[in-house]
């Protein structure tokens, strides 16, 4: 299917539109929340929380409530659990993350099988854009609106507590509260991304576009916009290939964002490996 045919399909078919709205929103919010995750050095934490929402989804199904609530509760419990293990023992932070989230993930796998929920484990783990429902789309749009609103309202507080948490605490910002607020956003974003990329790969959409943007700019707000743009490009690629060639949307999204990263990694004007090598060679030649 050519891109033109695909665009006419978006116009003609409602289910393609739903997938389009959902994936664009997911690209934006993953890109934006991802910037803060990357700058705070929480990539592993992002990975952990995204995996750990699984038991929450299963328990919501057993209790017959919207899986959104269970997932958010599980995400927050994981963040708190990791913090608790880390602060009350000599276990290092990466190990506490590994210990807690794998336990949650394992519990989730068992519970989902036990629940006979009809929840398709594969589509939660790896995403399935072709089966986005109207309710999924609305949930993603609402979550997206919340995330964007929080980041706009608290931009100043997020910036300073990320860059210099000591100064932030010294002038009275509740830095721990901000950390957990960010963990809540992270959980919301993960839940919203479940249909698009799936919980296994969502971490890639959080850290890869943000890292790509990080190589291109020295201003946080520019980084946020670039990162969101890279997230959207990746999501759209995932959308096109999953409809046109029946490929797994999550995998395509992640590979697209990786290709963008690789390109910038080598060719970015400031940080690019290639130009840096050329510049240092010129310097050496000039010196000799």
């Amino acid at each position, binding site marked *: 299917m050519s891109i033109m045919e695909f665009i006419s399909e978006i116009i003609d078919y409602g289910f393609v539109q739903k997938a389009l709205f959902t994936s664009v929103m997911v690209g934006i919010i993953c890109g934006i929340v991802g910037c803060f995750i990357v*700058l705070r050095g929480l990539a592993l934490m992002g990975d952990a929380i995204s995996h750990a929402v699984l038991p929450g989804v299963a328990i919501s199904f057993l209790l017959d409530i919207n899986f959104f609530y269970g997932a958010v509760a599980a995400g927050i419990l994981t963040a708190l659990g990791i913090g608790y293990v880390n602060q009350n023992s000599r276990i290092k932070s990466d190990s506490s993350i590994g210990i807690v989230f794998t336990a949650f993930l394992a519990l989730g796998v068992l519970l989902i099988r036990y629940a006979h929920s009809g929840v398709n484990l594969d589509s939660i783990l790896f995403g399935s854009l072709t089966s986005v429902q109207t309710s999924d789309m609305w949930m993603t749009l609402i979550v997206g609106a919340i995330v964007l609103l929080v980041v706009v309202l608290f931009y100043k507080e997020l910036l300073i507590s990320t860059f*210099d948490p000591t100064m932030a605490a010294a002038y009275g910002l509740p830095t721990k509260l901000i950390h957990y607020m960010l963990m809540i956003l992270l959980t919301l974003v993960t839940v919203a991304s479940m249909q698009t990329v799936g919980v296994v790969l969502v971490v890639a959409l959080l850290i890869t576009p943000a890292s790509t943007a990080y190589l291109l700019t020295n*201003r946080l707000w520019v980084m946020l916009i670039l990162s969101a743009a890279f997230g959207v490009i990746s999501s759209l690629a995932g959308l096109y290939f999953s409809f046109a060639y029946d490929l797994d949307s999550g995998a395509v999204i992640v590979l697209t964002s990786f290709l963008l990263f690789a390109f910038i990694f080598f060719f970015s004007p400031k940080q690019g490996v290639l130009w840096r090598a050329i510049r240092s060679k010129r310097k050496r030649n000039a010196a000799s």
Partner: protein
Amino acid sequence: MEHKSIAFSVQDLTVSYGEQTALKNINFQVEKGKLVGVIGPNGAGKSTLMKASLGLISKDHGTIEFYGKPVKQMRENIAYIPQRNNIDWDFPINVLDTVVLGTYPKLGVFHRPKKADRKRAQACLAQVGLQKFSKRQIGELSGGQQQRVFLARALAQQTEIFFFDEPFVGIDASSEETIIHILKKLRDEGKTVIVIHHDLSKAQEYFDDLVLINQDLIEAGPAASVLTPEALGKAYKSQLPFLQSEEADES
């Protein structure tokens, strides 16, 4: 007689990390309008004293007051510049925007810095002599320039009290001169400035008063009266085993 107001007072402060006592029953007061150095050997608890005073770490007991009020009510009036190695120098922020952060405390939630705030930041940057560097990413500066940027940020906070943790470590001589010049100017304007310092040779030249600690308070008061051989011996002895062996040789 003129009544001297006390800007900062520490009463009976004890701080421990787990089993280990870092500070024991520390008592001293700092008068308004003084430039005060906190000195002592490595591991004496200088940074701990500062962090506990600002409520950044929890204390076992003791009372900290700023103008007679607890730190919680005075945060907007205190600027704190932590050690340079706690900062991520690759962060996507330029020099001017770093100084603008100093205007945040007084803005409150939901308010963005306005033109006037950016102007104030620019003026503070000019004071430390770095206005030409405003668009540079902070990691591209030298250590001394970085320290001056953080001093400019503290100036932008427009506070009454300044806490500075080891500002002179690993910086060039001209930056050190600029910084001490500005600190003395702040003191002359009636601000209270408290600085952690480790170079004893310049302590008397730089500071009005000194607080000498080594877990206990050894001595506090005018610089000359603190820098006595007895007090220094008491503070540094346990940290310098060769001093003890020399004494043993003499006897």
